């Protein structure tokens, strides 16, 4: 893999920008890129407290898919997937985007019913989807244990062949590089500590590197969005949780697709470099600290070995945690806030990476036109007042 020789400048902040994006993760960088590319807005700064893309962008398990149940979700994630399909060329960077197929396993009759329902909805929405029975799962991914003696046997799976993985760092750097080339200032080590709000309108951000005036301010801070919003006097329906992931040591190729099991919280793929990349379920408690409990990892390994007994001697090399912001309906919040000029893009929970280009696209549009992009419209903050939720928690297990 050859990287470009130059990625970004390290500029000092200017006194004022048309748009200040708070958060230099994947979504913030994608927003900056599309603001410049699609809307000609380049007097833009991305303010990052730490290092670019060092939050959830650096910590996720890089799974990309668009097979969501509801029309609104399928539309925005499919838009994103279509962008992924051209993104390496567009950004002139090898993103190691690999459409190797994503399996979502079903372990009980309720899972089967919900899986079929989602496949049918996906197909009618133009999203590729297939239902596989257990034998077909075994054919597609021979190392999965489909024995009916497993504690929770595999009863089938949904398959999205266009789904897959990409190299998260490359995505961030590619977006950063292009945004930088358009003249966007990427400012690292710059923490936003407050907002200057005059007459109900945001006029500047206060930062660890001084005041920066802003025509518009766009939050893109994932797990810390609620902290920032509180500094602007806004209380958001978000709960932040640690989400852990891990990698194994480098292994020769052994798994050539993505396998997800929501029922037992196992998400696994093998990175190009060779490590097995595995995600867990969220840690139950609320936290802004990027640390998780080891019991979550232990439970994840127990579940993973039921699916992949051959990994019993593989070893965990490194574990880590990110902070995910989860909304009441597990769908994102995109659009204006009660403060004029202050916009929010948050609540992506455990699934933000796959949305990176799509989110940036619609958020940039929303910022540029000062009204929600049609794909973002259903994800407005006021849905928690109207009740028009887009509940992607999905059905709980059958409760009879």
């Amino acid at each position, binding site marked *: 893999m050859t*990287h470009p020789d*130059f*990625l*970004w400048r*390290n500029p000092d902040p200017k006194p004022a920008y048309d748009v200040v994006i708070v958060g230099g993760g994947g979504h913030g960088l994608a927003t900056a890129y599309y603001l410049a590319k699609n809307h000609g807005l380049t007097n833009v700064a991305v303010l990052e407290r730490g*290092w*670019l893309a060092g939050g959830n962008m650096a910590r996720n398990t890089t799974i990309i898919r668009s097979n969501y149940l509801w029309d609104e979700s399928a539309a925005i994630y499919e838009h994103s997937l279509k962008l992924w399909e051209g993104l390496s060329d567009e950004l002139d960077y090898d993103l190691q985007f690999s459409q190797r197929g994503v399996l979502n396993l079903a372990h*009980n*009759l*309720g899972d*089967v*019913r919900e*899986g*079929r*329902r989602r*496949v*049918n*909805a996906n197909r*009618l*929405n133009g999203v590729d989807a297939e239902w596989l029975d257990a034998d077909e799962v075994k054919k597609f991914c021979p*190392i999965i244990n489909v024995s009916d003696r497993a*504690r*929770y046997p595999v009863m089938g799976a949904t398959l999205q062949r266009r789904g897959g993985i990409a190299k998260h*760092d490359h995505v961030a750097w590619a977006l950063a590089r292009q945004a930088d080339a358009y003249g966007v200032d990427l400012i*690292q080590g710059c923490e936003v500590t407050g907002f200057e709000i005059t007459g109900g309108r945001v006029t500047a951000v206060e930062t660890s590197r001084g005041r920066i005036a802003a025509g518009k301010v766009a939050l893109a801070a994932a797990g810390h969005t609620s902290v920032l919003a509180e500094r602007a006097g806004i209380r958001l329906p978000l709960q932040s949780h640690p989400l852990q992931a891990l990698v*194994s*040591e*480098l*292994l*020769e190729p*052994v798994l050539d697709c993505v396998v997800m099991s929501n029922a037992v919280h196992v998400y696994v793929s093998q990175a190009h470099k060779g490590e097995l990349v595995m995600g867990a379920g969220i840690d139950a408690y609320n936290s802004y600290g990027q*640390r998780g409990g*080891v019991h979550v*990892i*232990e439970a994840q*390994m*127990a*579940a993973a*070995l039921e699916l992949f007994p*051959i*990994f*019993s*001697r*593989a*070893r*965990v*090399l*490194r*574990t*880590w945690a990110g902070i995910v912001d989860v909304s*009441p309906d597990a769908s994102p919040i995109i659009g204006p806030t009660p403060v004029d000029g202050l916009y929010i893009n948050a609540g992506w929970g455990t699934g933000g990476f796959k949305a990176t280009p799509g989110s940036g696209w619609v958020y940039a549009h929303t910022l540029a036109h000062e009204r929600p992009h049609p794909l973002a419209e259903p994800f407005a903050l006021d849905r928690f*007042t109207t*009740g028009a*939720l887009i509940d992607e*928690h*999905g*059905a709980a*297990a059958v*409760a*009879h």
Partner: protein
Amino acid sequence: MRFTFDGRPMTGEPGDTLAAALLRNGVRVVGRSVDLGRPRGIFAAGPEEPNALVRVGADPILAATTVELHDGLEARSLRGKGRVDLDAVDERRCDKGYLHCDVLVVGGGPAGLAATLAAGRSGARVILVDDQPRLGGDLLNSRLLLDGAPALDWVAGLDLPARVLTRTTAAGYYDHNYVLAVERRARGERLWHIRARRVVLATGAHERSVAFPGNDRPGVMLAASARAYANRYGVRAGRRAVVFACADSGYEAAEDLTAAGVDVLAVVDPRPSGLPADVEVLAGQVVTGTTADAEGVLTGVRAGARHFDADLLAVAGGWNPAVHLFSQSGGRTRFDEELAAFVPGTSAQAERPAGACRGLYGTREAIADGYAAGAEAAGRTVPGLRVPECGERPLRRPAALWLVERTPGSEPAFADLHRDVTVADLARATGTGMRSVEHVKRYTTAGTGADQGKTSGAVVVGVMSALLGAAPGQVGTTTFRPPYTPVSFATLAGRDRGALSDPVRTTALHDAHVARGAVFEDVGQWKRPWYFPRDGEDMEAAVRRECHAARTAVAAMDASTLGKIDIRGADAGEFLDRVYTNMYSTLAVGACRYGVMCGADGMVFDDGTTTRLADDHYLTTTTTGNAAAVFDWLEEWRQTEWPDLDVSFTSVTDHWATVAVAGPRARQVIAAVAPEAVELAFMRYASVPVLGVPGRVFRISFSGELAYEVNVPWRYGRALWEAVLELGAVPYGTETMHVLRAEKGFAIVGQETDGTVTPQDLGMGWIVSARKPDFVGKRSHARPDTARQDRKRLVGLLADDPAALVEEGAQLTAAGVAPMLGHVTSSYHSAALGRTFSLAMARNVSPGDRLTAVSGNVAHPVTVVEPVFYDPDNTRRDGDPLVESPAPYAGECRSESPAAAFAARFEAASTPRAHLREVPFEPMWEVRGTDPGAGLRLGPDWWLVTGDVPPRPGWVDVSGQRTVLELAGPAAHDVLITGCPIDLDPSVFPGHAQTLLAKTSVILERVSPETYRIYVRSSFARYLAEWLIDALEAL
């Protein structure tokens, strides 16, 4: 000891690591590098090894320096990546353990031993963990004399007042001083979870290399490692050596190598002056390159104009305190200019580094620091601890040398050997604009390999600081993440494998179902009979037969899994009014009512029937899957929102075994098993003898037929089931239950609902009280979107083709294309209707509308109908009249305890050290409110009373809710600590506790010093029995 490497037979010595044995056999090239394919040899002697990665047996990738040699070991070389053996069976049996202590000491070197001694002698409970087979740390690798004798004599003479775990690597340091350690045991690894009041980190230091050209050749080795091979294993890593001494430890290595018979040609010391030595010292000089033979193996070392013919280059690049655990704990490191290394800075937890871990490299100063750390951790200093004498020289300041510039045409200079990252790669990264070490790590992959940067981290920082002109302290380190060394998946899973991977919950009737050949369905953790095939029937045939019996005769189902919550208190009715959408405070005593519970969002959360047993006493049933969630939900509202209400909840799910008897002839069966309930009216309940034992009969129907739910205490459940079947009832499973209820248009939570459905959407507006001032979800029902008229509603569907079964999950469309109007939630063949039918949630449709149901490549034309398919006028509710009063059931009402089937296996697994049995039945009650003056206190105002005592009013009979297992013997404690996370030490364990054992909650009671009673929910008894048997076998 015989072993093979790449098929070649070799021999090693007891105590060898595989790496030592390979060197002993003259193996120079152990593998090839991951990207460049360069030959690589053994570089280190411990877990920091970046090069010598091998496959051992079925282990895909291990550092040869960490593998203890055993006879018959088979090792194979790798190219930097492991290989999973698809056919290997892992026969290890890993498990876990939970320990608690006042002081945990990590590391059994001089500082750790001293800390253990100081803390233990002061009376603290101390645990010492060390990753080597023997204690001593660096003393194992040294020729040092302490008080004039070999240092290991001093170690052997220590009487350590502590629990000592060798071969145990502390791998993770989590919040609240929770340390995870992996013990390598013959049977499999044990994952220790250690909760420590204070931690002493005596983790030592790792030697580092320098990025000079050609520094990756086989033959280039860390100096301290070469010394360890010579002193500890008696193995010469080469015959002719050059030592590159950026730190004085290089001189010690030179002396020890010489003593071992290695011909040391020179010491190259970058500092202006060297130390006196028996060999030539090239002060103020650096190693500038290496030469190699055709295979790439080291043949010579260049230092400026000088060239030495050498097959070993021992590099003493300086020391990095092993701050991994310190950093994992949340502590912040700082760069120490004097030591040229990152050292522990500010601590975040109750922890203290000691010895080399904080840069105190001398043995005497480490021991002194260990004493101080141990005393500090224990909070008390004991007299009489003496630091032994030794002849170590004071250490000079090391050279802060990170890289040696390449000259054109020279070999690459590596910063990270495993990931093949060179100085040029790092320069490229900083050239892109990257300033953060985290970015550079990711760009180059440095530090992401097998050793997680143990040998490369400081070099990368040093090179970056040189490239960027910033101090190393400004560059900083990447975050140290757990585990310290890799941990196998199986180790983390422990005993939670296969059938034990998640508890299996079973009912009192389970063995009877198995005996009848039931096919089971997983519902949550429960195993429920799905259907009961006879004589080779497929599911469709079995279900048709079972449905037919229920609609025309009598059939029976195991309904024990439904959640049952006993609700008591003066405000019980008021409480239920607030959590259900309908009224319960007005329910007559003896009456049952169906209810729906919503979340705060107004969506259906659960449903079930609630019966008023007395003025202040209700019994609520929940769905199987939601039982625990509903219980938590009730407690949450009571405790956080309405603490003023007088109400308490007791789970009696496992206390009662429940048999649903349904069908027009159900009365015949009831007349025989519970004659006093035969006149029961619809939606009424009676507390009556059932088979002569106290039972409860509810006349509730989920099928539209005459039906009863008959409850008896767990131990009589199987007898009741057998009696009911003997009386002619046909056993049916969940599939038939689903068909019967769907024919009546009854929704199932989680099937018709998915978290987006209100009671009104289900056509149950009638159950949502308009009169009550408030209930959970009421406000949300008024939200604009929730109050919309065009929401999806529950409807029925009939396919044009009466034989065609529309798939559940099919999407409904007007003409086979989007938009989707809804989806099919339930779909069955119906024996009663003589055709298929479906339920669906759909918007903007009315009976008579024509739709297309799309599933996969199939599209079915369907017609919308009302969702009640069978007996819409409820004419079948009262069934057939009694033909003639049948004789009461004459069979025996046999009692069977929850673990009865395990008696023989318990006996077989028991030993004199640990004996396991089920305690014979004892009555039990849960008591709320006033202290009964007896029994076990479970929580605030909450007790469990057991035994032969007269119950008082308000006590909830839970005799069947739990079964009691007894574990006795000197090793009982050792068994329990493999699954119980709390501290069972007599000094802190209050005698009993509600806690976890394995993956189930238990009440654990110590009835005598070596005898424990384990009260486990009856439905978990089978799971826990299997777990305990496995744990006994592991002793």
